[in-house]
């Protein structure tokens, strides 16, 4: 089941709107880890287009990631006004999920005592709460999954969309990537060895409204689930994964942090501009899909392979065709 893009929505540090997906994501803030400054691409949360969602009764207490998501999905829906929302499914992918509220809630537990942690905050920490807000606010009636994992869960989410459409569970699927930044993330990324290589974390949401492909640019075969434990194994996993595709099809540069070194050893032609230095995990993976669709639509190549370097556990890749 090939997937074609009907419309898109984006909330990134480059702004709001579909153009903000593939535009360079500027770093907007500096956070310090152990005295080392780390630059991050954060969202301007006082943007009126985001603040408007606070007027929705259900969204009054929602987490920042919820606002990113609902805005991105609304943009995508605006691009397809005649869509049957009741037959539209949504699958969201997260590397980190509801980080800000989860950490705030646990801080309340440890500092104020278990009995005094806010019961209002807790439900908003649950992985699928943001997506449930999106579905309730925008009236989507198809199947709904929140998927988690390393960055390859974006590829897994695309595969879920293929599965639902193949089975006729819905007519269209919105595949969504979303991440939010919390300063504690810098410490976690440092501890995980991911800051080496100049990774600049960023936040936001990208929504791609996809349907069964009739003609034109499409997301095709997906090869996912190639494991690694060490960075050397990461290269081997990538080679196993990419062996599923023609060796003559160029690769999109989707590397970040340590994967740049590994990818340099893969003997395949590279197409498109160098990957952005900012890293939004699933968000970056979603932007890569858009970049690949732009490349085939512009005629630069009839096919592109888009690798998804999971950063921590798996490698995936998929083909985008004109």
């Amino acid at each position, binding site marked *: *089941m090939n997937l074609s893009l009907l419309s898109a929505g984006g909330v990134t540090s480059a702004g709001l709107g579909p153009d903000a997906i593939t535009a360079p994501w500027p770093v907007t803030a500096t956070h310090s880890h152990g005295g080392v400054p780390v630059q991050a691409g954060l969202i301007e949360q006082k943007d009126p287009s985001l603040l408007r969602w606070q007027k929705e009764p259900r969204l009054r207490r929602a987490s920042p990631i919820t606002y990113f998501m609902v805005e991105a999905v609304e943009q995508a829906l605006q691009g397809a006004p005649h869509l049957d929302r009741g037959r539209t499914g949504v699958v969201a992918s*997260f*590397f980190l*999920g509801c980080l800000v509220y*989860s*950490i705030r*809630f*646990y*801080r309340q*537990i*440890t500092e104020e*005592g*278990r*009995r005094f*942690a*806010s*019961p209002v905050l*807790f*439900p908003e*920490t*649950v*992985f*699928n*709460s943001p*997506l*449930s*807000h999106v*579905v*309730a606010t925008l009236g*989507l*009636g198809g199947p*709904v*999954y*929140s*998927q*988690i*994992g*390393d960055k390859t*869960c974006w590829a*897994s989410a695309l*595969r*879920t969309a*293929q*599965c*639902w459409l*193949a*089975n006729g*569970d819905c007519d269209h699927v919105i595949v969504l990537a979303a991440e939010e930044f919390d300063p*504690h993330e810098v*410490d*976690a990324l440092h*501890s*995980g060895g991911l800051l080496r290589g100049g990774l600049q974390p960023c936040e936001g949401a990208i929504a791609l409204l996809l349907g069964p492909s009739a003609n034109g640019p499409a997301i095709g075969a997906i090869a*996912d*689930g190639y494991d690694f*434990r060490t960075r050397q194994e990461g290269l081997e996993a990538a080679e196993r994964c990419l062996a599923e595709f023609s060796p003559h099809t160029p690769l999109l540069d989707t590397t970040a942090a340590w994967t740049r070194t590994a990818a340099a050893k893969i003997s395949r032609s590279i197409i498109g501009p160098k990957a952005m230095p900012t890293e939004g995990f699933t968000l970056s993976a979603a932007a890569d899909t858009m970049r690949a669709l732009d490349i085939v639509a512009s005629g630069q190549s009839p096919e592109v392979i888009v690798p998804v370097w*999971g950063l*921590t*556990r*798996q490698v995936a890749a998929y083909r985008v065709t004109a």
Partner: protein
Amino acid sequence: MSATPTPQIAITGLGCVTALGADATSTWEALHAGRSARGPLTAIGVDGCRVTEGAEASLPSWPSWPEKRLRRLSRSTRLALPAVRQALSEARLLDANDRCLLPRLEMSVSTTACGMEKGEEFLRALWSKTRTGQSARVAQYQSQAQTGAIHDLFGFDGPVMTVANACAGGGNAIGHAADLIRSGMTDIVLAGGYEALSELVFTGFDGLQSLAPEACRPFDRGRRGLMLGEGAAFLVLENADRARARGANILGYLAGYGQTTDTHHLTQPAPDGAPLERAMRRALEQGRINASDVGYVNAHGTGTPFNDGAEAQAFHRVFGAGQTKLSSTKAALGHTLGAAGAIEAVLCLLALKSGQLPPQINLLDPEPLVAKALVGHGEKADLSAAMSVNLGFGGSNAAVLFTRA
């Protein structure tokens, strides 16, 4: 265009670890003995909470792995591994060294909290300026660490879909595995869910005053809340033709799956249970099975006033006051969140196989709408179909329909 026949989906392996037993057999026997796993919690800190009891599992030992290596894993990983082993072993997919015979095997998995205690440890260490051991805590927290440990131990890899649809996730993971097989994208999937007790989640439910201060009493008019638990369960789902061709023992079939999202409220179902009813009807429709042919429903039945009220209405509208029996095993096993749907799927399959129905324990004053349906001690039935139903935060609903082999 010729229509491709929809493949039949067989279950060829199952396994579970619960607070009542380290495997499916011991859990099943304890359930039928009417036991509840409720007791004081030692695995997590609960001082200061309104409720301090729950259903804590004993971590199974793993003779081939040194204790030091096991201790590095999250609690949820340690619950998941034995359940996976049981399922793969029963499906005859393990060699003599416990390595999977399939080098690539797709997984569809559910969790809500991943390896949460590792995340909690990371934050506490960070706030107390302890720098040692942080990389291991980060590595073991996220869901890919748990599924990765399964891959490492049993020697396979493959696509992993980890769904975090709150307490309906276990049902979703199993339903999605069936969807993958139906679509032809794969022909065998290891599906299930895992969940360990954690301080953050326990405190969250305690703060919402959702925890039962005494025995958890699903579908009782005096119900006062849920009992949190922990555990894991996995099933091997397989295209039935493939299963037959390789001579696998078929334990039952997954006949239908329905999922809906209830947009009434973030943490409360629509009082009339209508979205859940739609999920149940979709599962019946997909399975082409009449409601009257379903002999047993394993309810979500958390024991909270809102959940059980909505669920009783949905059950009554779909199954009426006929022969379909109903029970919630959460009174005995606790609510295992992302693992619940998987554990309860295992129980449905065991009920189909044995004809024994898990009793509704702790019942004093039954909810009138479902009073006649609730399973009594020692009840048996000649079942041809059974359904597992789950609801979750965010309005996720899942209904999975099984039929007898």
